[in-house]
């Protein structure tokens, strides 16, 4: 493990060929064609080091954690808690106790809704989200609103997919108890100006949750610099396994919240009359956690920290610019989401062709993209389309792959004209 954050290192040429060798799945063929994996916003592929670490965890140190006195349990516990420490360093949290392991971003947001939301919100209160939210940052609040009766309000967006900051302040009222917004949009790629959103909310004493699922694979996230109160993300979108994710919360805030689920590990003592709850983060981690997943996430962090990050970002930026240029040049193709600040997403529609048909034809060419509403139906409605085709990039994608995508889109046009 390098431990390098690489922030101050000079930008070296990014060797994508070498990087691709780290991801065994990129050697796969689909329908007899080399796989061109452009569905990274759905889930990212895993480097060999993550796969190996998870296999080793199962093969060499599988035991339950925290309660065992035997050597294997101690080893497993250490690996699990090491992973937590890696997460803490990765997002620059102030304290390892601020890192709660959950199943993913969705569970992280549900956790906040069911602990913070359930105890802090009353009828007439407001939670402010944005027009760019994934369903996972809409539905948990609606479920809670059914119980509590608070109001969900929405920061609108422009046609290009940028939040209407001019309307933001006006939407923060004395009844606003939480701002919960996405850091990077999964369907359009917009990078929201979260520092500004946080500081304006904080001026009014309103805490902020950021959905960072699409941000952590592309940006250097520093929760202390952002000063957000909660930050949620998933392991599988940052080259780690599925079923493991993180809720970061400021320690004093987490400590003030009630438990999420009841069970083992989240208690310090139990009688039939009353239970004492464990300290944070364990208070929120009832039951045996996804140990292998956490260890795999730790390995993904090691992998990311071993990369020359400024070079990665420059490479991704150029790749997105190249993809944007190539797609824009195609007759009948329109890119949705043209924010000035964008990450790795090319969402588009094609005249007279439904995205689903595009997806099927591209698949026959080995090109994996996502088609549909991307769990952001309000975004689709706002843009007046039922669905889009979405190519989402990672640092292991290449210009050649963009060219393959464009050639495959040519086949789509061939069939449909």
């Amino acid at each position, binding site marked *: 493990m390098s431990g390098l954050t690489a922030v101050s290192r000079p930008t070296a040429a990014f060797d994508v060929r070498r990087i691709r060798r780290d991801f065994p799945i990129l050697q796969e063929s689909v329908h007899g064609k080399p796989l061109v994996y452009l569905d990274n916003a759905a889930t990212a592929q895993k480097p060999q080091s993550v796969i190996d670490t998870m296999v080793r965890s199962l093969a060499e140190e599988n035991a339950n954690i925290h309660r065992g006195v035997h050597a294997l349990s101690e080893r497993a516990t250490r690996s699990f808690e090491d992973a937590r420490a890696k997460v803490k360093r990765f997002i620059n949290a102030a304290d390892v106790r601020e890192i709660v392991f959950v199943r993913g971003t969705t569970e992280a947001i549900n956790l906040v809704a069911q602990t913070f939301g359930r105890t802090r919100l009353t009828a007439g209160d407001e939670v402010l989200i944005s027009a760019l939210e994934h369903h996972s940052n809409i539905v948990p609040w609606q479920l809670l609103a059914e119980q509590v009766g608070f109001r969900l309000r929405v920061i609108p967006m422009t046609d290009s997919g940028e939040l209407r900051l001019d309307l933001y302040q006006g939407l923060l009222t004395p009844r606003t108890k939480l701002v919960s917004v996405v850091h990077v949009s999964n369907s359009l790629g917009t990078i929201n100006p979260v520092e500004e959103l946080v500081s304006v909310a904080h001026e009014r004493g309103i805490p902020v949750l950021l959905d960072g699922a699409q941000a952590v694979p592309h940006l250097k996230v520093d929760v202390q610099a952002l000063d957000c109160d909660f930050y949620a993300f998933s392991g599988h979108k940052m080259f780690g396994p599925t079923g493991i994710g993180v809720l970061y919360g400021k320690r004093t805030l987490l400590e003030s919240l009630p438990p999420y689920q009841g069970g083992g590990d989240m208690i310090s003592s139990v009688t039939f009359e009353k239970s004492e709850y464990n300290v944070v983060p364990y208070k929120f981690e009832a039951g045996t956690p996804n140990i292998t997943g956490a260890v795999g996430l730790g390995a993904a962090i090691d992998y990311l920290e071993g990369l020359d990050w400024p070079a990665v970002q420059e490479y991704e930026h150029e790749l997105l610019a190249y993809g944007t240029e190539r797609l824009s040049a195609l007759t009948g193709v329109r890119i949705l989401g043209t924010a000035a600040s964008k990450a790795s997403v090319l969402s588009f529609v094609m005249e007279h062709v439904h995205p689903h048909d595009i997806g*099927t034809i591209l698949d026959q060419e080995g090109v994996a993209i996502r088609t549909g509403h991307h769990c952001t139906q309000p975004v689709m409605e706002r843009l007046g389309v039922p669905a889009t085709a979405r190519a989402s990039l990672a640092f292991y994608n290449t210009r050649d792959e963009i060219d393959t995508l464009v050639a495959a889109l040519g086949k789509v046009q061939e069939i449909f004209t």
Partner: protein
Amino acid sequence: MSDLRDLYQEVILDHNKRPRNFRAIAPPNQKAEGYNPLCGDRITVYLRLNGDVIEDVAFEGSGCAISKASASLMTDALKGRTIGEADSLFNEFHHMVTAPADAPVETGRLDKLAVFAGVREYPVRVKCASLAWHTLRAALEAKHDVVSTE
């Protein structure tokens, strides 16, 4: 490897571009709405029945080429048929699009609808091809529902 032309046959592309019976029926005896959340396809099927006979059937909505062409060809095939005949066509159609890819294509009385045989090679697209038919069945079943709000 399957050939895309097996899926996107000329007849399908034609019905996608110029769907037949793409309109509402006012007033219909029955209608039903179908939705495929996977791709956002939405369809409304309208029926005008005369006793047991489908006098008119039409649809509106948006969707992929497969779902639109399937709805269009379905409406063409059903006009003048009895409900019983529509039911058996549904079953034959469903059997055809869900049969294993290597099984012989049994088109029976499907006639033009046989162009959807290629869908079996694309399991995720079966729902697209059958959305109109499921919606039709919902519309037909509503007919027998005494508490129908229609």
